[in-house]
């Protein structure tokens, strides 16, 4: 698959749109640069001594500043949107280990389980290699869920691309992220911080 996965959470939708917006700007700049290169290669005009060029220097100072502002404004909007305060209905703690994740649901009942990746030799037909696990994390949809992420040994990172989530699991530190899945489905993620020989395996 090329590109980003389909969005499941509102934040990921915003990120997708921002990605499209930035790609459009990149495309236009690339077209302009390609055109200027083709002009340079085909021109008969040559000048070997430096000249005064106030106008073009003004343009190529102000124009990039405007472009950067056009990119920065939506970016900051999404950044602050990610940090909005909401009242999660459920809290799930996840601890990174070498090389599995453990989850705890302690809001209503004491529930803990480990989630190991299914080795390639034990996969059933149709299952995805390096992505399937034995015990999946089941979360409610259309409800804000708080994830508390930490680690028992080395650095790990809990990532689910479809939800637009990636949070480092640091030993001795508790990181928090919130998620809201807008539609039911199965969403995969892999550890996103190198953590030893079986990282993402």
């Amino acid at each position, binding site marked *: 698959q090329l590109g980003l996965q389909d969005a499941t959470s509102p934040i990921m939708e915003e990120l997708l749109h921002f990605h499209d917006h930035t790609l459009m700007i990149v*495309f236009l700049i690339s077209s302009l640069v390609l055109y200027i290169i083709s002009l340079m290669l085909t021109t008969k005009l040559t000048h070997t001594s430096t000249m005064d060029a106030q106008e073009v220097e003004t343009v190529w100072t102000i124009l990039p500043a405007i472009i950067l502002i056009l990119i920065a404004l939506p970016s900051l909007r999404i950044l602050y949107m990610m940090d909005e305060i909401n009242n999660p209905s459920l809290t799930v703690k996840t601890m990174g280990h070498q090389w599995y994740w453990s989850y705890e649901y302690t*809001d*209503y009942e004491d529930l803990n389980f480990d989630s190991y990746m299914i080795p390639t030799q034990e996969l059933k037909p149709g299952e995805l290699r390096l992505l399937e696990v034995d015990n999946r994390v*089941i979360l409610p949809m259309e409800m804000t869920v708080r994830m508390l992420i930490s680690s028992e040994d080395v650095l790990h990172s809990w990532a689910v691309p479809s939800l637009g989530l990636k949070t480092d699991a640091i030993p001795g530190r508790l990181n928090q992220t919130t998620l809201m899945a807008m539609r039911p489905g199965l969403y995969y993620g892999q550890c996103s911080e190198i953590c030893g020989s079986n990282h993402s395996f």
Partner: protein
Amino acid sequence: MASTPESGEPTKGKPFKLLGILDVENIPCARDLILYGSLGSVAAGLGHFLLISRNRRSCDVGVGGFILVTLGCWFHCRYNYAKLRIQERIARDGIKNKILKKKIRFCTKVPTLILKENQPLTRAAVEQSQASEYNSGVRIKWKATLLRLICTIKLSIK
């Protein structure tokens, strides 16, 4: 992620990337944008050439026209698309709330009346009792959902 779409679901088109960057098939507004930009570029370049009869300058004007028309159409189209998405979200939430209210009312529509001790049987008391049934119905529903979730997880753990 890499799941086959079910029948009836809109499928993602095969990506066609201009300059290897812009996926024209799958990005909303991109296709119309490139078409309008090309049209604007041809119109500006050709018009300039017809007026001035200079090749290079007309090409420059054409490229400039492409960039300006593309940018303008992009912002216009994305603004309308964002408005549409917001309207769609409001409509979806409204439909969901309406269905939820009807369900709660149906579930809590039992021929009982919860009145406080020594409360007289008046119209206001009946309405207050129904309102508190609705609110407690909503709270009970969410807690039940979460408890059901915990049971599902317990059953699925190997």
